[in-house]
C-alpha cells in the first residue's frame, strides 16, 4: 500500500524496516495522503535528503503529511543545511529546530 515510498530513495531494507516499525495507523495515513506525501518527499529529495528519508517518516510523520506550501514556508525560516544534517544525525532532537 505504501510501496511508492521506494520511488524517493528509500531502499528495500529501509522499506521493510518502516513496515515493521511504523504503527498501523501511520501506514494508513501514508496510504490515504499518498499524493501529498509524494509532493513532500520530492521536495525533501531536492533538499538532498534521500538515504535517511525513512527516519523522517518514522520519527517526524507530521513533516511528511502537511501541505507543501506550509512545509516550504516553515523551512524558509531555518537553515536548510542544518535541517538536513539533523535528520541525518540526530532526528529525535530535530524537534528543537523545527
Amino acid at each position, binding site marked *: *500500500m505504501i510501496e511508492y515510498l521506494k520511488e524517493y530513495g528509500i*531502499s*528495500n*531494507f529501509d522499506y*521493510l524496516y518502516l513496515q515493521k516499525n511504523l504503527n*498501523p*495507523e501511520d501506514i*494508513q*495515513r501514508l*496510504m*490515504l*495522503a*499518498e*499524493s*501529498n506525501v509524494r509532493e513532500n518527499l520530492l521536495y525533501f529529495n531536492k533538499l538532498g535528503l534521500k538515504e535517511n528519508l525513512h527516519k523522517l517518516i518514522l*520519527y*517526524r*510523520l*507530521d513533516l511528511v*503529511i*502537511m*501541505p507543501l506550501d*506550509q512545509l516550504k514556508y*516553515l523551512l524558509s525560516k531555518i537553515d536548510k*543545511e*542544518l535541517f*538536513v*544534517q*539533523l535528520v*541525518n*544525525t*540526530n532526528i*529525535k*532532537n530535530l*524537534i*528543537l*529546530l523545527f
Partner: protein
Amino acid sequence: MDEGKELLFKLIDFKRKSVSFKDQESIMLDGINMVDIADMLEKDMDNLCDVPDSMIDKVIEEGNIDDNNFKKNIIQLRDLLYGKRNYNLFVKLNKEYRDAFDIFKSTLLEIINKKLPGAKSVVEIDKNLNLLQQGLENHKLIKNFDFIESVCHEYDENKYDTNMLKIYRYINDHNLKILNPPDIEFEDFDVEIVDETEFSDKIYEILNKFEMDYRTLPNFLLKDLKEMDNNLIYSTFEVIKQNKAEDGGVLHLIPKENQVLRVVLLLYSSPQAVKAVVESLTTEEDGLDIDSLRILLNYNMGVFIDRINDYFKPRNKDYLNIMDGLKEIKVNYKVLIKRNPLFLSQNYDMFKYIVEYCHEFGCDPKELVNRCHKTLTINPTVIVNNISILLSHKVNMFTYFKDGKDDFNLLKVEKLDSIINQLIDKKVIKKYSFTNFDKINSIILNSVFKKARKKG
C-alpha cells in the same frame, strides 16, 4: 564464499587479536558480568531488582562503604522495585533511597574501572564481535553497522571505502533474505476464483457519479463496497455529493484522481460525522472555513471516519473532542490545522491528560499547545517523562512554566536526564538548585546543532 562475508570474518579475527579479553574474568561475579549490571542500572533504576545479594555485598566490601544503613537501604530499595515491576506497586522513592542508588552505581563503576581499566569498551567489543559472528553463522540479522564501520577503518584505512561497499552489499542481501524469506509453496487446493466483481445498482450509481474505474481500487475496498450495507453507503453518498460544503457536500474538495480517499470517505464516514466536522469548522462571523476542511479531507481523513471497520481507525470522536478543547482554550485552530493537520487526530484522552497534568503546575494550556503541538502529535509521553525528570531534580515547575523563555524545549528534548547530569558533572549548573532554564536551553541547542554540523 562471498567477498563481503569473507571480509567480515577477517574483521572479526583482526579485532579479536588486537584486544585482550582474558582479564574479563576479573569483572565476573557468580557468572554475571559487572559491566552488564552497571549498564542496566544506567538505563533504568528499576533494573536494580535484578541485582543479587552477592553483588551488593561485593560493592560494599570492595568499595569500602562504612555507612551501616547503606546495605539496609539498598536492599529495601531493590525489594520495593521488585514489587513495582512484578506486582505493580506504586513506589515513591525518598532521598535516602535515591542517594543509596547513586552511591551503589558509582561505586560499582569505580570497582570495574579499578579491576579492568577500559572494561566497558572491552565488553562492548566482545559483545559486538559475538553478535556479528552469530549473525554470519546462524543466519541472524546483522545490525551493528557503527561497530563494523569502525573495525573496517582500523583494518585497512586505505581500502576502507571499497571494503565497506563489499560488506554493505553482502549485509543487504543477507538481511533481506531473513526479512523476506522466499514464498512457501503450498500444496494445490481448490480455490474459488471470482471472475467479475458485481455490485448492486445503488453502488453502480455511486461509481458512475465518481467517474471512476473501480478495478483500480485495492481489493479490501472492493470487498467492502460489495458487502457493506448499501443503505449505509448511500446515506453518506447523498450528503457528500451535494453542491454546498455547508450542507456536508465535501466530495468535490477531494481531487478526482484520488479515488481511494473518496471511497474511504464514502464507506467509513457517516452523514453525522461529515456534518459534525463541517459544523466544527463553522463560526457565526466567518461561516465555514473551506481551507481547513480541504486540508482535513486530503491530509487527515481519519477525522471523518466513525464507522468501525477492519482497516482505518475511527478518529471522529477524538477530533470533535480535541476541537472543543482547542476552542475552549482559544487556540487558533485554523493555523494549527494548516501547520500540523495530524494534531487533530491524536488520542483525545492522552491529549487531555497531558494538558491537565501540565496545568497542575500552572501551565497555560494555550501556551502548551502553541509551543508543543508537534511533540504532542508525535511523541506526547516525552512531555510527561521530562516533567518527572525535572521534578526529580527538584525544579519548581511553576517557575519553569511561568518563565517560559526556553520555548518549553526542556519538555521536548530526548534523554533530558543524562543531559542534566552531564551539566551537573561539568559544574555548569548546580545539583538540585538550578533555575537558569534559558541557559540550559541554549547549551542544549548549541550542543545538538554543533554535533549535527560536525557530523554533517
